[in-house]
């Protein structure tokens, strides 16, 4: 169907399904960026703990490795 708009139905269908995939991809990529952000913060926390334990005379090597 050409429709009243002048745009073909095929163009709109391709655009609609492309948009669905783009939106889905953006969500997934954002989620993985958040996950890598959390990992980075966890490493920072471990460094802070290691420094803190070292200054308090504890054994910093007991901290788990990431």
């Amino acid at each position, binding site marked *: *169907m050409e*429709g*009243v*708009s002048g*745009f*073909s*139905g*095929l163009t*709109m*269908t391709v*655009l*609609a*399904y492309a*948009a*669905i995939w783009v*939106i*889905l991809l953006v*969500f*997934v990529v954002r*989620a993985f960026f*958040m*996950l890598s952000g*959390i990992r980075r*913060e*966890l490493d920072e*926390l471990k460094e*802070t*703990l290691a*420094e*803190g334990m070292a*200054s*308090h005379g504890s054994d910093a090597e007991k901290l788990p490795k990431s």
Partner: protein
Amino acid sequence: MKSTSLHIILASLAAVVVCVALYLVFFVAPTEATLGIVQKIFYFHVASAMNMSLAFGVCAIAGAVYLLAKSNKWRKRADALGVATAEAGVMLGAMVMVTGPLWAKVAWGTYWTWEPRLTLSLMVFLLFVAYLALRAYAGSDAFGRSIAAGLAILGLPGLYFIRVAVERWGGAHPQVIYKGGLSHPAMRQAFFASIAAMLLVSASLVVLRFLIERRRQTLDELFLEADKIFG
């Protein structure tokens, strides 16, 4: 079963069912006589809309649990579920808001019309965008999170009104399902496969986002503990 394993199983299953649904939509279901190929937008548009309502409904229930729960453990879980379902719902809502106007431009000659169901859908979508904005602004502040939970609960009547909008107030929005449309069995197959596909995609993304939010909560607690110990 570990939550990460559950997520992997759900994501794999979702990928398979999405492929099956796309095959059924484009290669098995016949092209509709009046609208032509643009009718194929309908399958994923309606499936996204149904799952959007489900996600926002769960978000509202999670908001109620957050406000009513006495235990801190349950409040945190409800809060994480609220964020996860609101984000998945907004993602599905974005799909609905993009695919609907593309269909309408061909069928109605206009991208948008302020008819009841479309207007209500936009309002509920914006309400949950506001929920996410508020949640992001509130950070770990309990008061801000409570206001956000209240906002999510306000979305529940909106979901009901979207459902009954066409019967009560009319409008141009088609009612294919309730008016007994999709007479061809292959169309019904494609439609139910699309619903299953979007349900699995949404469930998989909600689990992924829930796990991330739970890790974020644990990390925030650890930072606070470290701050207390080493100041």
